[in-house]
């Protein structure tokens, strides 16, 4: 278990041993960050589950805040402490983290609708723009990865129905027109992220990349020799970009001991790549990527984008999410029971990840205190969502920059002056990450008379 290893100790040893001057700036940065007294970096994990999150699934037991499936009636914020309340059955596995959690109800995301047959909002879920628009602007996972960069800015992982669908380009985006792939083959993701430490062909792939970066750098140096002024500057910028990538390869090699400790054992999952095993593997890979310091921003998508849904026969859900969304039942289980069972499984995986992060000490707390897990669906509140309510579960912390203190927060309903959107949540996260912005995505036309800028007061620390 890696619980006893602190990042500071591991990296301090590294900085003394790995003397390569090329790595010094990055190593110095990592070591400084891990040193006593220095504020540890924030990390972010976005967990997207297709098929919507029913708002009733996150209302504490015994609370009657909503009549059946009616719109929420409150025009003022309702805040309830979770300390003396039970979490509802669908998210009960998250109970151990009640003190570090906010169940956020009442956000809307109507700006993200459109174009996918009334199902997923695609990039809109993390980008706050229409799902039909393609990757038109940076999504929040990539924006935070850029705000708090790790060795790799963003790691995208996913699971799709067919095993040979290895990449999902429908949810993350690093800039206009630049869809960011989610690696949906866990074994491939594993080999790509941990190739420097798992030997064999994977070590060769790592070395191949390093060799190519060597070649490109050398080629550019030769080409720029013939240039002066602005034209030379163009190649200098490209060269600087390559050197950063080169340093990253070096930095990955330099954290080899942490990687070796963190690298998960996934032989069983790889041998039998069912949906359950693949998703479990992706959560393990994401956890290891955060713990080892490879990245500070991860997205995990279970299905997601267009009409990508999963069945989980291993746990008694043999029919796909689309069927469930349209009311199919199986083995005496009602549609709602199937929804709950699926939700519980995802919450168990999130809880397992949170528990691992909570075991690792960092600064004056744990790694979980500096890692925010955001759990939501790419289709808002339902299989065919109207997006006027978009339930979100927040777990962990941002090093004290966000008020995650065990609350159920129900914001004013859609159309009311104090109403807040998903974009306001993302603005809050960017602000807490030290990268405040005036707006995120595009405004909701239906809220034209409401100020859609700014953060969410109730989440401010």
């Amino acid at each position, binding site marked *: 278990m890696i619980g006893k290893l602190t990042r500071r100790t591991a990296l301090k040893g590294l900085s003394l041993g790995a003397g390569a001057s090329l790595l010094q700036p990055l190593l110095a940065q990592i070591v400084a960050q891990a040193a006593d007294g220095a504020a540890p970096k924030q990390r972010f994990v976005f967990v997207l589950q297709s098929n919507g999150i029913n708002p009733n699934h996150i209302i504490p037991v015994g609370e009657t805040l909503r009549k059946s499936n009616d719109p929420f009636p409150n025009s003022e914020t309702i805040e309830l402490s979770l300390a003396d309340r039970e979490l509802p059955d669908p998210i009960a596995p998250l109970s151990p983290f009640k003190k570090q959690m906010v169940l956020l109800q009442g956000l809307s995301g109507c700006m993200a609708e459109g174009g996918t047959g009334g199902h997923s909002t695609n990039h809109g879920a993390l980008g706050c723009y229409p799902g039909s628009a393609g990757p038109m602007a940076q999504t929040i996972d990539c924006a935070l990865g850029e705000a708090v960069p790790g060795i790799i800015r963003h790691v995208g992982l996913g699971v799709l129905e067919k095993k040979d669908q*290895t990449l999902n380009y429908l949810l993350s985006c690093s800039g206009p027109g630049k869809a960011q792939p989610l690696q949906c083959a866990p074994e491939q993701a594993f080999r790509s992220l941990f190739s420097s430490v798992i030997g064999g062909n994977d070590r060769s792939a790592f070395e191949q990349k390093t060799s*190519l970066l060597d070649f490109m750098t050398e080629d550019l140096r030769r080409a720029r020799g013939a240039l002066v002024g*602005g034209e030379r500057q*163009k190649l200098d910028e*490209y060269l600087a970009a390559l050197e950063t990538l080169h340093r990253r390869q070096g930095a990955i090699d330099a954290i080899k001991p942490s990687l070796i400790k963190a690298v998960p054992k996934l032989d069983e999952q790889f041998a039998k790549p069912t949906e359950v095993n693949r998703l479990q593997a992706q959560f393990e890979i994401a956890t290891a990527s955060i713990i080892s310091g490879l990245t500070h921003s991860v997205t995990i998508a279970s299905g997601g984008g267009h009409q990508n849904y999963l069945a989980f026969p291993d746990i008694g859900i043999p029919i796909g999410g689309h069927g469930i969304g349209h009311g199919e039942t199986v083995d005496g289980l009602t549609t709602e029971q199937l929804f709950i069972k699926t939700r519980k499984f995802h919450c168990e995986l999130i809880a397992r990840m949170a528990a691992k992060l909570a075991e690792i000490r960092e600064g004056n707390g744990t790694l979980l205190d500096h890692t925010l897990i955001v759990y939501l669906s790419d289709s808002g509140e339902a299989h065919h969502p109207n997006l006027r309510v978009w339930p979100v579960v927040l777990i962990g912390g941002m090093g004290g920059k966000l008020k995650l203190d065990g609350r159920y927060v129900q914001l004013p309903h859609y159309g009311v002056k104090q109403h807040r959107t998903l974009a306001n949540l993302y603005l809050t996260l960017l602000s807490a990450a030290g990268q405040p912005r005036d707006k995120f995505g*595009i405004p909701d036309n*239906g809220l034209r*008379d409401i100020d859609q800028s700014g953060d969410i007061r109730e989440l401010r620390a």
Partner: protein
Amino acid sequence: MIWFRRVLLAVLATALSTHATYADDATLSFVRRHCVECHGDKKQAGGVRLDGLTGDMSNDGPRWMTAAEQVRRGLMPPEDAKQPSATAKTEFVNSVRHELAVRTQRKPNLGNLVAHELLFEKAAASNAQATEATAPRLWRLSPDAYSAWVNDVACGTPKGVVQPFSAGAERGVQDFAQLARVDEPAAEILLRNALTIVKQQTRHDIVDGKVQAKNDTVREFTDLMSPTAMPTREQLLKALSKQFRLALGREPDEADVAHLLKFYERCASGGDRPGAVTTMLTAVLLRSDVIFRSEFGGPDGMLTPREVANAISVTLCNRRDEALRKAVDLGQLVTREQIAEHVRRILDDPKIAKPRLLGFFRDYFEYHKAVEVFKDEPKDLWHRPDQAVRDTDRLVLHLIAEDEDLFRRMLTTPLAFANVKMSIDKATRKEVMKRSLIPNAHNQRGKSVPEELYGLKEWTDQQPFAQPANTRLGLLMQPSWLIAWSENFHTDIVRRGRFIRERLLGGTVPDLPIGVAAMVPNDRTHTLRERVSSVTRAESCWKCHQHMDDLGLPFENFDHYGRLLDQDWVLDAEATAKNVDYKGKPKGDVLRGVPLDTAGLISGTDDPKLDGPLKDPREFVTRLANSDRCRQVWIRHIFRYYLGRNETLADAPSLQAADRAYVGSNRSYKALLVSLLTSDSFLKRGPQR
């Protein structure tokens, strides 16, 4: 104004000999003496501050231009201030204009800082010979050119290859040589894409110890994938030659071969020879000359034949043209006549795809951005901006193909395509026109369909068709343009006006000052014209808005969905308040019609044929279409698009020749392009700077 131009050119000719690169002391001193008292640290009249102006006009160009224009128009210094002499004013204006004219402005939308008359006066053209020629440069592939390159190298786009380059954030022309860079995320994607492409090129199975290549792979590469066989030097050379031809359109030279074989040996030292081959092949795809097209020129200062072939191919087609490559090998791409012949060949051959022809019109009018303006769909309209864009694309392609008086027709044609798509008829194998969007009786019930926007009561395959009289003319009244230049909830008078000022009149408008919150009042009981005017006519705002608002107002003839209006609509507050159900719950807004006002004004062009009031958008575009100045401004934008930079005084001969070629060839667009792509500006390079 003739006296002014003569004085200007006389001063200019003197100034040219000095080759000054910065504002001289006299110019700076003029600002200090006559401007800074009211526009300095203590006081910023009209929100304008000039005390921080530096002599480097490549940074401060827009502010210098604003100051010079105010002086030229006699608006500054104000009447009650101490006046400089007429000579001092003229010298100041000329000095600023000259400096802005000889230095290339980096950003696409600063091209108009070069005063129009400097470029199109005959004397200016002869004086321009003394100024600097185009500098040697590198030009990174555009996103479209990169996609085309991948397609050529990998015989299709392999799964997993993604776009490394973003379109520019600037308005207008997107692909500017100076602005295209490779940053860290792009470099990473380039590396990943190259590995994916080579993986596709070398896909194979090993069956009984033998390599079995898969479809769409490259034989020369898969031959080297055996884990047991040692590749011969000949095989490696053959593979390198193939990859060079695919990626760069040429054979590798001796240095390339030596360098890459050495790289191969280094990679193969671990024993994985197929791995070393793929690494070597990937390296070819990652060379800087794949990503950057070079235009350095030969010893004679002209682009080398290979550079010409590359430049012409990418400029018109986004991808390499095989016939041009052969012409290089045969030594048949040396003279201007030979180059012109190939440009004509490409333009005349319908089988050669030329996406950059349409690309210019998209960048220039930006109508394709209609799909990015998000609107609620009204109850009575099937709002499909994507189809509106496709219809405008088709109209542009039709006008280009007819190649008659394109400038005038693009502004004033009554023709339109409506709700059209082209498909291949299975029986005849010919392209036929079909109705693109067919309404669904349930979903589109009660909504007008896309063709009705253009005045068609029933869809027809006889397209293009002439739209009803007194409705729409040209591209500026196409629904796509009107939507693209609108806001989420209403039209956009100011930005439309700015479009006309910059792209057709060749003027400049300063960017919104920092700290100014530009808000149109949301009181919908008034028309947008009234709401905009209520804020922009304030003295401090009007200084800039006078260059825009009156030019955008005629397009209020259409709503923000691009529908023709016969009256304007405002909120009826009283009726809305009464519009409640039996429980008192509001049932929605009630609108009332008010008379439509489409009047506008052209001012500040110094051209009496252009300046003056306008009654509606049809009169407006007709006046623009008949203007020599507007046509020349359009040609300036064509120059920027195809040469990937702003024009300077040195380009005056090329621009004038292009204009002459167009006018003198019964206004043929092809003739204009041939002239431009065989001009000194396109083919000649000076020393590096």
